[in-house]
């Protein structure tokens, strides 16, 4: 409880100690946490997709178009944008879940690339290679006595923080529910799960749709903040970053991917940017990916687990010594 209180204070105070550009990065980081956490939900069923970032893009494009072309108010366009991503994922589940494992990985990559190339090819309505510009921003909120301007990264940070925390609570609940248990069952022994009456394909589809919906929501959060989307923003390189966060952090706990995302973003923004090594960013990322697969296959979460276990042991020791 004290930990949660402290965390809340830190999260609220955080943007005030940062520069303007760092605040903008903080917004993107918060959004990325949702991307990687929703990705993890799919990995619970044992399938690894390479199309997750494209699903994020589907949400971003959809919300941008709904608000720009049809005049849908932005908060509503964001919700239906996210749902659009879920719907597209549902459609893709029919071909993709005829495959498993490695074939699913490649299949999801192909499906994602096709979507991305469609954005690139069709100038109307997707804007071609340059994408969509001047997307409507999230509207200001005027409460009379106070006016919240979401162009300000601090305000937008608080807004995304609330949304993302809400989403994380939902993801947490899903995982701890009987549905989450069934996801695990599908992962570890799909034949045994099936013999218990589990429709394995439906559960895989459910995981894909939920994770894609949240990825889509993350996409809408990004689109209405930076005001532009383009096909290259959702390419395989971005996907590799998400994959890296998940693998470096570990995927057996909810916090694993989040730790991975925060650690690598901090490393990237603080260390590499300060050292002027921006060109070397993929180099370092690549090395970290290789090294963590080789030497830390259980991810950073395992380090945290061991740390906590060690701390508990120390406390117990101290108490027994005191007695």
């Amino acid at each position: 409880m004290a930990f949660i209180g402290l965390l809340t204070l830190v999260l609220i105070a955080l943007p005030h100690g940062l520069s303007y550009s760092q605040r903008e990065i903080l917004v993107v980081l918060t959004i990325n946490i949702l991307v990687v956490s929703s990705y993890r939900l799919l990995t619970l069923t044992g399938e690894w997709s390479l199309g997750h970032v494209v699903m994020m893009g589907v949400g971003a494009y959809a919300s941008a178009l709904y608000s720009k072309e049809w005049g849908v108010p932005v908060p509503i366009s964001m919700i239906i944008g996210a749902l659009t991503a879920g719907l597209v994922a549902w459609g893709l589940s029919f071909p993709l879940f005829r495959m498993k494992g490695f074939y699913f990985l490649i299949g999801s990559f192909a499906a994602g690339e096709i979507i991305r190339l469609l954005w690139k090819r069709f100038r109307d309505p997707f804007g071609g290679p340059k994408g969509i510009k001047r997307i409507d921003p999230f509207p200001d909120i005027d409460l009379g006595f106070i006016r919240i301007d979401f162009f300000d990264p601090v305000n937008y940070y608080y807004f995304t923080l609330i949304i993302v925390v809400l989403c994380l609570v939902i993801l947490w609940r899903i995982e701890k529910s009987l549905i989450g248990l069934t996801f695990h069952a599908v992962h570890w022994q799909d034949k045994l799960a099936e013999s218990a009456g589990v429709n394995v394909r439906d559960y895989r589809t459910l995981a894909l749709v939920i994770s894609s919906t949240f990825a889509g929501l993350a996409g809408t959060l990004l689109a209405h903040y930076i005001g532009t989307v383009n096909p290259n923003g959702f390419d395989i390189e971005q996907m590799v970053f998400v994959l890296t966060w998940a693998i470096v952090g570990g995927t057996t706990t909810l916090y694993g991917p989040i730790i991975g995302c925060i650690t690598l973003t901090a490393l990237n923004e603080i260390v590499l940017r300060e050292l002027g090594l921006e060109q070397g960013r993929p180099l370092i990322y690549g090395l970290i990916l290789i090294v963590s697969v080789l030497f830390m296959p259980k991810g950073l979460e395992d380090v945290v687990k061991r740390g906590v276990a060690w701390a508990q042991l120390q406390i117990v020791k101290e108490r027994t010594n005191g007695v």
Partner: protein
Amino acid sequence: MQTGLNALFAAAYLSLVAVGLVLIFGVMGVINFAHGELFMLGAYVVVALYTNLQMPFVLVVAIGLIFVGLVGILMEFTMFHPLRDNPLGGLVASIGFLMVIQASITIGFGVRMEHVPPVTQDVIILSEKVRLPVQRLFVILSAFVCLTALWLFLKKTKFGWALRASAQDPEAAMLQGISTRTVSIIAMFIGAALAGVAGSVTAPVISVSPVIGHSVIVSAFIVIIVGGIGSLEGAVLASVTYAFIHTVITTFIDGVIADIVGLSLMLLVLIIKPTGMFGTQDRV
């Protein structure tokens, strides 16, 4: 006719890359995502030694072959061997390696496109409308020579036999006294070297940049899926088919549509028959 020649040229370098990819997958059971980057490395060997240092082109190609082959062995030692029991891990590590190579080349050479001066400007004029630049003919011939050599190696030599045996059944191969480790190293060298040669001989015809690996690996994936993972003949056959379809669509409609068609084709094959149209074995 001209389109057919263009397609043949594309099929030539694509089949070199794809065959290498299949070979590595067959023997080691891992998909090398960095294979497109090995192609790109081959092209940069030409940029460094031929464009910049003016060494003879044929020698440079030979160096490209050996250099990239050695990079392949490096990958085997640092990643694929330690991760041999973890196929997903090997795949992810190869993605990491991809980023490392790409970034290293970007730092060393810059992101801009390199123009490699053609070795020869000669053009064989087959008819009024059909022209075949000798440089392209050279790519086609190299592919033909390399693939024939590989075929002879696999069918006629002891190592080739060992390689095929361990691709089909690693345990049986081990019982026969074949060192799977040696076979892995050889497969990695050949697989990588083929991609390197493809990059080297193609470099003067295309614009070389650090990101060319991407489109190559995507095409190669399409080809090995359509050709049937694990089938070398299938990979060659699919390369020719794919290159022809892709070139025709690029010529008459546009390149992005051609890519979409290619990817859809791959998805279709995955839906209908995940082991590919010509595939015989399924290792995953």
